[in-house]
């Protein structure tokens, strides 16, 4: 389903003052959260205008996270695929192993600035939980991470990592026991402890200002990439590719390029066992607009508006909604969103491992699969920049289990 919207002349004008990206986004929350959200938006605006805050953020991104992350030309993979050149933005090389730290560093600094003593977070694959626990440890703040009981089982290594970092991991047993339920539970915690607790949302969803501030903190990926492309290749890429669950790594890469009309953009959603099977998490490809977790966006629901259970081999993409800015980019036609199945992602995982010596996260393997598909259709002088959003160490048990290998 597509609700076509005329494209704007400037993509940097979104969101509006109340967090709307065209008809999407907004603040659909119970009254109690309206004031804390306004307080957060004000603190963020103030921080953005404070050179000291920005300098400290840059410093931490460089010396703690290890930025800039390189752009690596995957020549052997490109050769094997045949067609366009595949370039990888190596977010997997960041401290903690994924792009998620870009956002938690920023929100952690905001928490400290607002005088909050306790951090809460939701997590699916555990990458955002680990990134939140990391920042909390470094700032000396209490950290509680909500995680679906189902996800705890399939991501046990990350659960242990969070505990090593001093976080409390709370299993969520309501609903489908996955990321969406973890988000509900974190919201319930926040509304009950608003005076001293800072909620670090891990993706570009939730009520305003979260989709905007999570985007801004991740946009360092795209800003760097834009500069690196010119330095290394003398031009911008022909296409960007990133995986989309909630959509934080994708928006981080896409956003600084939105006004570069010649740069195409592709979001790879989790098509699971295939869109037709109903077992997938492709909300943009197969959903329709509704309201969940504080914003209006594309959702996977039954016809009564009850949010349905999703499926993906990668826990980090297993989410029935998607960031509202992606919904808007879909409707304006600026970005295309396509489904990648579990099998295609696994094949891409192996191809990248064997040709380039890189184990990608299963989430990022969806992007690699889409980059490979796209490369086949283009001449070999074209450049595709694919966001390798995380490393695959956390997924080796899952992959072994799927392939029937005892470790």
């Amino acid at each position, binding site marked *: 389903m597509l609700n076509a919207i005329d494209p704007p002349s400037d993509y940097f004008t979104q969101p509006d003052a109340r967090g709307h990206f065209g008809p999407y986004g907004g603040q659909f929350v119970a*009254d109690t959260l309206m004031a804390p959200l306004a307080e957060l938006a004000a603190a963020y605006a103030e921080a953005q205008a404070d050179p000291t805050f920005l300098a400290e953020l840059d410093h931490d991104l460089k010396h703690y996270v290890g930025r800039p992350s390189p752009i690596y030309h995957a020549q052997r993979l490109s050769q094997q695929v045949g067609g366009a050149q595949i370039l990888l933005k190596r977010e997997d090389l960041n401290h903690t192993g994924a792009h998620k730290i870009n956002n938690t560093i920023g929100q952690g600094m905001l928490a400290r600035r607002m005088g909050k003593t306790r951090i809460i977070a939701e997590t699916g694959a555990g990458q955002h939980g680990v990134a939140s626990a990391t920042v909390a440890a470094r700032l000396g703040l209490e950290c509680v991470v909500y995680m679906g009981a189902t996800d705890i089982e399939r991501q046990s290594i990350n659960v242990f990592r969070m505990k090593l970092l001093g976080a409390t991991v709370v299993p969520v047993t309501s609903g489908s026991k996955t990321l969406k339920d973890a988000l509900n539970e974190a919201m319930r915690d926040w509304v009950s402890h608003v005076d001293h607790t800072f909620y670090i949302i891990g993706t570009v969803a939730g009520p305003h200002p979260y989709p905007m501030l999570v985007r801004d903190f991740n946009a360092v990926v795209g800003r760097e990439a834009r500069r690196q492309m010119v330095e290394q290749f003398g031009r911008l890429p022909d296409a960007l590719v990133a995986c989309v669950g909630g959509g934080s790594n994708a928006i981080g890469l896409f956003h600084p390029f939105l006004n570069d009309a010649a740069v195409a953009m592709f979001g790879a959603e989790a098509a699971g066992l295939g869109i037709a099977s109903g077992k997938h998490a492709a909300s943009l490809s197969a959903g*329709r607009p509704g309201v969940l977790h504080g914003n209006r966006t594309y959702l996977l629901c039954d016809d009564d508006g009850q949010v349905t259970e999703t499926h993906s081999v990668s826990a980090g993409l297993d989410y029935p909604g998607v960031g509202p800015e992606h919904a808007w980019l879909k409707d304006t036609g600026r970005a295309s969103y396509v489904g990648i199945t579990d099998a295609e992602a696994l094949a891409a995982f192996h191809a990248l491992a064997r040709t380039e010596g890189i184990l990608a996260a299963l989430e990022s393997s969806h992007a690699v699969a889409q980059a490979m598909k796209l490369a086949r259709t283009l001449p070999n002088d074209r450049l595709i920049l694919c966001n390798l959003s995380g490393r695959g160490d956390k997924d080796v048990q899952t992959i072994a289990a799927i392939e029937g290998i005892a470790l």
Partner: protein
Amino acid sequence: MNRIDQRFAQLKSQRRPALIPFVTAGDPNPAWTVDILHALVQAGADLIELGVPFSDPMADGLVIQQASERALRKGMRLERVIALVRSFRLTDATTPVVLMGYLNPVEYFGWERFAAAARAAGIDGVLLVDCPPEEADSVRPVLAKHRLAQIFLASPTTTAVRLKRMAELAQGYVYYVSFAGITGADQMVLADVHQHLAALRNVVKTPIAVGFGIKTAAQAVALADDADGIVIGSALVEKLAIATDAKSAQQIAHEFLSPIRTALDAVSKPQAA
């Protein structure tokens, strides 16, 4: 005048606060809901808030989360909730009924279709937890066209500016959330609630009902002077969960609500003759 305004006007003249039970439609069994509603009226309910189950009830505590899950498992859906009220109205033409729930089922049902069906079924008002006044602009004309009151939540964190705007838009009553938290939690501090309600009174011209965390007759009585209505949800829903048939559900509802009604009436101040 709609049923909600009529009821509050009548109670005001009697100097009694409204007793407002909340139950989740379809829980513990869709076949018992209408019987439960009648039992609540017999036990002294002045207005009923009927919960529309949703898969992701972000503002609700465990009791109402589980009630929603049970109701959904038994096939409850918005269309059937509306049908339950239609059935309730066959024998009760006077007790106001307000649907309480989340936006998404209404969005998927379609606003115009929902408002028309709700009105035709005898529903009087709608309280959408995740639809603050700021996001209600497109919804307001549709509800107004079908004369459904849109009821808003106010809370301890509502700023003066927002409260003023809310007071302008409020219909039926304003539901004051007694603490920053989720339904059914034990976080209510009476002194705080007294203070906030007094401040609210200066701005809000519609009646004010108070809820979240009110579980006992003693708590209801303690708030009777400050509020025009007392909402009791989780404590009742928790009791109803163990019902085994329609008759036992009715009995549980009656035994729960009736002592609260008696306690409230004992402290109400009838107008001097």
